[in-house]
């Protein structure tokens, strides 16, 4: 199987920033990404859960995107100003992908 090296960027961020993060990723040339709801967690502000919540203020989402290694710096540079004041975590891991021409 022909596997290629890629970067997997995982962004856990406040749900209110969903649209803005999607816009930044697209502008940085990352046209494919996945957004997932986050059920709850724990951080500097303590434990939290989305159960029973109706507003978006305290919700978080996970954004996962795969990109070619040479696109990573541009992506992180674009993301930083959006994420800097908000609650969230960004992690980057090395991964391997099939059908590299799609990224």
């Amino acid at each position, binding site marked *: 199987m022909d596997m290629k090296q890629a970067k997997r960027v995982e962004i856990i961020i*406040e749900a*209110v*920033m969903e649209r803005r993060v999607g816009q930044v990723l697209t502008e940085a040339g990352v046209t494919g990404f996945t957004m997932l709801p986050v059920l709850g967690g724990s951080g500097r502000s303590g434990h939290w859960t989305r159960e029973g*919540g*109706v*507003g978006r*203020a305290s919700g978080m989402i996970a954004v996962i995107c795969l990109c070619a290694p040479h696109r990573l710096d541009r992506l992180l540079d674009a993301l930083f*100003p959006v994420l800097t004041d*908000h609650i969230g975590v960004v992690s980057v891991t090395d991964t391997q992908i099939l059908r590299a021409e799609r990224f």
Partner: protein
Amino acid sequence: MDLILTLAGQNLLSPVILFFALGVAAALARSDLSFPEAIAKGMSLYLLFAIGFKGGASVASHGMDPGLVLAVLGGVVLSFALPFVAYGLLRAMAPRVSVLDAAAVAGHYGSISIVTFVALSAMLTAQGIPAEGYMIAVAAAMEAPAIVSALWLATRGGKSGGTGGAPGTELWREILLNGSIVLLLGSFFIGVISGERGMADLEPFIVTPFKGVLALFLLDMGLVAGRELRAARGVVTLRIVGFGLSMPLIGAAAGLGMGALLGLSAGGIAALTTLAASASYIAVPAAMRVALPRANPALYLSLALGITFPFNLTLGLPLYVALASAIAGG
């Protein structure tokens, strides 16, 4: 006084409030009772849909009242003005609260809690006190102006806490097109257009099950409020609690005055009083996360949801209805 005590007694023993109390108690006791987010959202959508449609149908059956425009304007003025009062009061009562946090909190107290308004509507219906149907439109109009005042208060000190990522469009979308506003106003206008015939069509769905859904939703809100109360321990001091209990009364006084000035009915005055006394915990917190991300969300959510909402629901509403009845009757 007798009326206040009677209403308070009836209110505290109503299933809606008892379910809310059950939710708070369960959360404080760390029970695993919880509602999936999707069900909670579904119930809130149902309540907004029902209350909006009923308000519109009521306007259609009574005819378009010229008082609508004045009432909306009165609500907008209150929403713009109350954050300044809340800001001054919070800074005076708790000087350690930062300018940014005080501005964010102030925005919540100028805006409205639609669930408190829904609970008031159920109470007015139970008491046989009619209110102007267009108070729904007033509620919708009061959501956004307070956010503008809060942002002005925050940026005045040069502490916008902005995202650095041009949040302007995002913010305005969050303020003006948030789902609650769109559904509430949309249902209201559909109610106005379809009138009594539309009401007859939807009545089995939006009238009979309404109280049951409200009770279930308030059980969920009790759980959320209880969780906020638990989280508030490290954030909220006694002085801040004092603010959370006194600000609704100040807002209520302003709402009573405005309602009387506008010549609203007893139900209408009670509605405007409740709107002015309540604090937002759906629309404004989301807007504040976009516009003022450095403001502490634990502070404004704990205040609006953990302190002011339970106060209004249990003691505030009977007080506001009794005062509104006294003013309209006198």
